[in-house]
């Protein structure tokens, strides 16, 4: 019997070998989860954050840059405080703060670094730098935050902040992770892809205690970060600064455009805020505070506030009438105040006189002819057809839709269609008498200040516009800007119709906005007064200058400031002078605007 037993023992030996090898085969070859777990164990992925692109103004002056900030880091295990009093003095913290920060760091990890004092300023850093060597376990980590040499153009430039959970969910690129900074408004958001650069990544090995054991595979898989593209904005820093000085203490918008390119020279939303307040660790606190203010400084008025266009819309009506052949420069209507109120001026007037005097009854009668062209014998049907045909023409002026400016959240304003009136009054139950307010820019019409400035640019260009935009070049190359900003949009009105309109706009200043007149620069402009049921009317003015070869088109809104001829026209005139001549020859007018007493 014992002769079999050595064989049994050998079989047992082989069996054990087979069992071990089978199990090893299962965990080593069949199951790759251990490989992943090993990587998670020992390989740490460290993101190398790129420098965000800088933003310059149209003349190459710096608007936004990255300011290094310094975080004091601590490795609790290595930390030695030494002389506590000296330490507290040096770092300007209390004993309680020291104990608390230290405990927090220790609770996180005693061997891994964590933040000890956040965001030390450059000056503070310079002060403590030399003493750091006395404190093992403390070191400085450099990060950067957005910074603004001049606290201007906050709405146009926008701000960056930590990416939100919702944004992360929607992000299909997979580029972002929790804690990443991302453009949240203005150009920062619109040009996020250009500005952000590309993250780099370093793989390093760590041991069981999280201590760095050098690069993984000698850095074979590491990539360097790529800095973001620098952007040249079309904003003129000096003009922007000057405009913000004028708008100080007021509520409203200023949008200035270079007509032949659509480049936005200045975009002011008043009241404004210091863009430096929405950077770094103060972001949350400042944002909440700004958001609570009743003056709504975060509200980007030039593209988000909508007002009735008022009298300025009469120019659009004139151009449509001319193009339709309904009006000619000689078309005359009486100033019949029984139709709609008007102020006193010679009557009857031709088209030129109507623009110059802003005659309401003229447009009441002209608009009726534009709308009711007797295409249908049914007056209701005829009005509907006329309104929609008219609306098509108005939309071509960039109204009633997003222009497509390079900022998020642009409002579309409103140009009502027949569908709208059908809904409100019922189909076939409204006619010209229902909608006549549209003739003088009232009623349901709503436009944004940006759309108004674009109108001024259209008038200056005699019938075309480029979508207004804040970008001028990417990395100094102006061909890199989005194609839509290089495309000419025709408004469908022949250029020669604009000649008379431009002349009338020059003359209009002498009627309603004498303050805006300049001796040596011919300004074409039009005042408006946006009716405000909640208080004083808003002062509105659009203009372009010089009349021959226009360089700047501008729209100014000053809320609750009454007539367009006062606050808005004065501000616009000063802006034009500043841009074209770079100096102000009318200190009295400047003081008048700064003082801001427009109601009297």
């Amino acid at each position: 019997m014992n002769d079999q037993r050595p064989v049994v023992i050998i079989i047992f030996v082989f069996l054990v070998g087979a069992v071990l090898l089978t199990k090893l085969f299962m965990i080593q070859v069949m199951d790759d989860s251990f490989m992943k777990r090993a990587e998670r164990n020992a390989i740490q992925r460290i993101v190398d954050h790129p420098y965000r692109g800088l933003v310059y103004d149209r003349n190459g002056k710096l608007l936004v840059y990255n300011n290094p900030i310094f975080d004091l880091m601590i490795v609790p295990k290595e930390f030695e405080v030494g002389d506590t009093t000296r330490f507290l003095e040096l770092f300007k913290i209390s004993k309680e703060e020291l104990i608390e920060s230290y405990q927090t760091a220790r609770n996180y990890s005693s061997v891994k670094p964590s933040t000890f004092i956040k965001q030390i300023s450059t000056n503070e850093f310079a002060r403590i730098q030399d003493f750091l060597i006395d404190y093992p376990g403390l070191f400085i980590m450099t990060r950067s935050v957005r910074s603004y040499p001049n606290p201007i153009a906050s709405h146009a430039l926008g701000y960056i902040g930590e990416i939100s959970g919702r944004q992360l969910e929607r992000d299909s690129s997979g580029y972002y992770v929790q804690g990443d900074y991302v453009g949240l408004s203005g150009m920062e958001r619109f040009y996020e892809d250009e500005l952000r650069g590309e993250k780099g990544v370093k793989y390093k090995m760590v041991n069981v205690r999280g201590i760095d054991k050098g690069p993984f595979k000698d850095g074979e898989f590491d990539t360097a970060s790529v800095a973001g593209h620098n952007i040249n904005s079309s904003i003129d820093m000096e003009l922007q600064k000057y405009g913000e000085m004028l708008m100080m203490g007021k509520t409203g918008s200023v949008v200035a455009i270079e007509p032949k390119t659509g480049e936005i020279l200045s975009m002011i939303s008043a009241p404004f805020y210091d863009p430096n307040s929405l950077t770094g660790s103060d972001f949350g606190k400042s944002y909440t505070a700004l958001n609570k203010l009743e003056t709504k400084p975060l509200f980007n008025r030039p593209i988000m506030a909508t007002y009735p266009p008022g009298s300025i819309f009469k120019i659009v009506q004139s151009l449509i009438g001319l193009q339709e052949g309904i009006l000619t420069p000689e078309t005359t209507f009486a100033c019949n105040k029984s139709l709609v109120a008007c102020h006193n001026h010679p009557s009857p007037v031709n088209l030129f006189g109507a623009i110059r005097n802003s005659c309401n009854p003229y447009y009441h009668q002209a608009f009726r002819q534009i709308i009711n062209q007797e295409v249908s014998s049914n007056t209701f049907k005829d009005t509907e057809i006329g309104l929609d045909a008219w609306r098509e023409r108005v939309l071509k002026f960039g109204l009633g839709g997003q222009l497509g400016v390079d900022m998020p959240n642009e409002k579309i304003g409103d140009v009502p269609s027949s569908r709208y009136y059908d809904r409100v009054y019922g189909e076939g139950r409204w006619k010209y008498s229902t909608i006549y307010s549209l003739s003088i820019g009232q009623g349901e019409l709503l436009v944004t200040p940006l759309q108004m400035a674009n109108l001024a640019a259209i008038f200056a260009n005699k019938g075309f516009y480029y979508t207004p935009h804040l970008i001028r070049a990417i990395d100094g190359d102006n061909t890199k800007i989005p194609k839509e900003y290089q495309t000419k949009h025709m408004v469908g009105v022949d250029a020669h119709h604009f000649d008379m309109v431009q002349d009338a706009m020059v003359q209009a200043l002498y009627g309603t906005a004498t303050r805006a007149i300049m001796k040596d620069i011919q300004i074409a402009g039009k005042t408006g007064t946006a009716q405000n049921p909640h208080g004083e009317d808003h002062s509105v003015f659009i203009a372009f200058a010089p009349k021959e070869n226009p360089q700047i088109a501008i729209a100014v809104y000053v809320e609750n400031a009454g007539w367009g001829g006062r606050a808005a026209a004065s501000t616009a005139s000063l802006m034009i002078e500043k841009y074209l001549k770079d100096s102000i020859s009318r200190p009295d007018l400047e003081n008048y605007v700064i003082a801001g007493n427009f109601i009297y």
Partner: protein
Amino acid sequence: MRETDININRVDWITVMIYFVLVMIGWFNIYAAVYDGQVDKSIFDTSINSGIQLVWIGTAIAIIIVIMAADYRLFENLAIPIYLVMLVLLLLTPFIGKEVNGQILTIGFGSFRIQPGEFAKFATALALAKFMERPTFDLSKTKYQLQAFGVLLLPIILIILQPDTGTAMVYFSMLIMFYREGLPQKYYILGIGIIAIALLALGIENNLYLAGAIVVIVVILIIMGKKTPQQIIGFSVIGLVLIAFTYSLDLVVSKLPEHQQNRIMVLFNPDLDPLGVGWNVTQSKIAIGSGGLAGKGYLQGTQTKFDFVPEQHTDFIFCTLGEEFGWLGSFVVIALFVTLLTRLVFMAERQKNRFNRIYGYCVISILMFHFMINIAMTIGLFPVVGIPLPFFSYGGSSLWSFTILLFIFIKMDSARALQLGRMG
């Protein structure tokens, strides 16, 4: 004329070769386990474990030479005295030894320390061989069974007192030798059955299922059997005893010290506490499992190198091998052990006297146990038991004791021609 003792031609060179191959692979793996790319110390640097291990290897070779040069009768003659000396050392260890982690395992002066528990293995092997070589010694008889267990039990008790349960368990491996020497097969069948039921009882959450299964088996056996009253009663009693055993096992486990309980529970559910008790096994499996088919390459392992696996140069040395050389590396080492053990069985069977054969089977038993349990624990097949992988693990006591154990047998084997046949 007396033939000279050292006859090179009679030495079993296959075994010697396997021994040296294993020792060298072990040495390279010890270097890999402590290797730090940032410091870049040489494998010979005695400030790291690989350098020290080289010293142990050198002294082990000296020991081999001494053993091979000694008179072949020496070991048989000194078997009992060596055994007694070892018992005394084991007895003294708790009093003169040095305490580490609550265990007192080593004695010695300064940095020179030996672990009597390791050396007691070959001493017990020699004693058992000497004790059992009598022709009248018959393991099928209860009297001799008790005597053999007695010789085994003395060192076991002394080692448990240190306490070093892992090393004590090694002595039970002698059951392999007892099997060869004629311990009746029924004990083994019973033992395997009990272990199987114990594993099932611990592994299956609800003992009711197991009890039900036992009842079903008993009923089937009764129906298929001779249906005599004795057999029916016999099967029923065995069934009831087994069910009682099943339920009492949980109670027994709950009486064990907590760390031993945890080691058992982790075996059945490795994710039970991956950062606590499960850490060793989990990290060990990650290290080995991440090796893949061909491994990450020598010195390229991250898990063992960066200390994720505790005790990686001693008891968990197999992790380094598995991680850096993958399944193919594991295959080579396991194949070497299987070849070595098979060769030793062959050698034991060609011995002309019972003393040599019994000693040979003792060597087989001890090596088999270490090889099987050590690797099984690193891959989660067996609870963590602190025993080294023969010839591989770092440490002088372990390398020396395995070397002495193996080479005494190689010496005996080389001198077998000089001995008279005195088989029982």
